[in-house]
Each structure stands twice: as structure tokens, then as C-alpha cells.
């Protein structure tokens, strides 16, 4: 199965996922992956991601299809959490298996950049006892512009 895209409301287990993905793609020369996790600093006590059912997973699937069209991949894994998370919890895991290293890296980075700036998630953080919605960052738009 070349494309595995999931939206989870339960914890991601990155090591188990990475192991299964590598097992599923023994013919690939390389696997590039990215694990995003809730930072343990800055006084953030919790983070919550909300998604909108009719749009969020379909959008992730369309993004994965774009990456599969653009690079020569043996497989692509995209797992994103929704719901409430705590410092150290995994938020997102992307892995791309390819014959050529450059393709694997580019596809993983492309998917991450687009997840960050274009996917249908809304984030709020709990700090100093209050929840605060996070606005998109300028850097995220700069990151995505690289792919045009």
C-alpha cells in the first residue's frame, strides 16, 4: 500500500509506525521521516488541535496524492493527531520511502510544509491557566512558497 494517511484522535506511536513503514518498504533505498512533537518548554501545558471532519482528512489525502505524483516514491505515510496533547506527545509523523534519497527528503518536507500552512487544523495552547488560539506564522507561508 503506497499511501497511508490517517487522522488520529488517540496518541501516535511513532516508533511502532516507523518500524511498520520500514518493514512495508524493504525495496526502498531510503526512508526520510519527520516527527513533530509538543515542545517541553515555554510554559505551554497542553495543546489542542481541532479539525473539521468533512475537510481535514480529505485534504490530507489530496496532499499525499500530490506528493506521490511529484516524486518517485515507494510509499508515503502521513499521520496527524487531533485533540488534546501534552508536552512530548507526537503531533505529526510523515515518512517517505524512495529509491533515491533526494526524493524521500523532498517529499517529506513538502508534505510537512503544506500540513503546517494549508491543512484544516486549528490549534490552541494552554499556558498560565488560559487557552489561546494560535494564528498562522509568517514562516509557514514562506516555507510553502518554496514549492511553487
Amino acid at each position: 500500500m503506497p499511501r497511508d494517511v490517517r487522522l488520529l484522535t488517540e496518541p501516535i506511536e511513532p516508533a511502532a509506525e516507523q518500524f511498520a513503514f520500514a518493514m512495508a518498504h524493504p525495496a526502498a533505498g531510503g526512508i526520510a521521516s519527520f516527527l513533530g512533537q509538543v515542545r517541553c518548554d515555554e510554559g505551554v501545558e497542553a495543546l489542542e488541535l481541532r479539525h473539521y471532519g468533512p475537510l481535514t482528512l480529505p485534504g490530507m489525502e489530496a496532499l499525499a496524492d500530490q506528493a506521490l505524483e511529484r516524486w518517485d516514491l515507494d510509499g508515503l505515510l502521513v499521520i496527524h493527531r487531533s485533540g488534546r496533547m501534552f508536552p512530548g506527545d507526537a503531533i505529526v509523523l510523515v515518512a517517505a520511502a524512495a529509491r533515491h534519497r533526494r526524493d524521500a527528503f523532498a517529499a517529506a518536507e513538502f508534505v510537512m510544509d503544506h500540513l503546517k500552512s494549508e491543512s484544516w487544523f486549528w490549534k490552541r495552547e494552554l499556558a498560565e491557566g488560559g487557552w489561546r488560539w494560535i494564528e498562522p506564522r509568517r514562516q509557514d507561508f514562506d516555507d510553502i512558497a518554496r514549492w511553487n
Partner: protein
Amino acid sequence: MSARLVFLGRLEDVAGTSQLDVAVGPLQRVLATLDPNLAVALLEDRVRVALNGALLSERGGIVLEDGDELAFLPPVSGG
């Protein structure tokens, strides 16, 4: 006969709820029945709308029918 408004992200805080059942009819008339602060927030340029799961390119002329779900989507901040 009712339709549902869905509020994502910070719009949920403004509305005080994540969804609201409203009477059917033209969207403009529906918005006029809401708290003015909420109506203004929903009309912001950066807020996109999806009708029954399909993004709309613009929101002029929307008429809510029975069972419709209209989602208000502020700028995303995911991942």
C-alpha cells in the same frame, strides 16, 4: 426545518459554542439574528466557508436549506 452553523478555531470562542442550529433561509437573514460580535467575526475576509463539506469560493447568495451544515473556517494554524 433547521440548518447548522459550525464554528472552528477562535470563532468557537466568539460564539461560545462549536455549533448552532438556526432557521433556514438566506444566510444574510440568519446572520442578522446572531449576536452582532459573532456576525462581524464570521464575515471577516479571512474566514472561509464550507457548505456540506464543500469549500465555497465566495459566500454571496447562500440560502440555507433543511439539514444544511455551513462551517466557518478561520485561517488554519495546524501541525
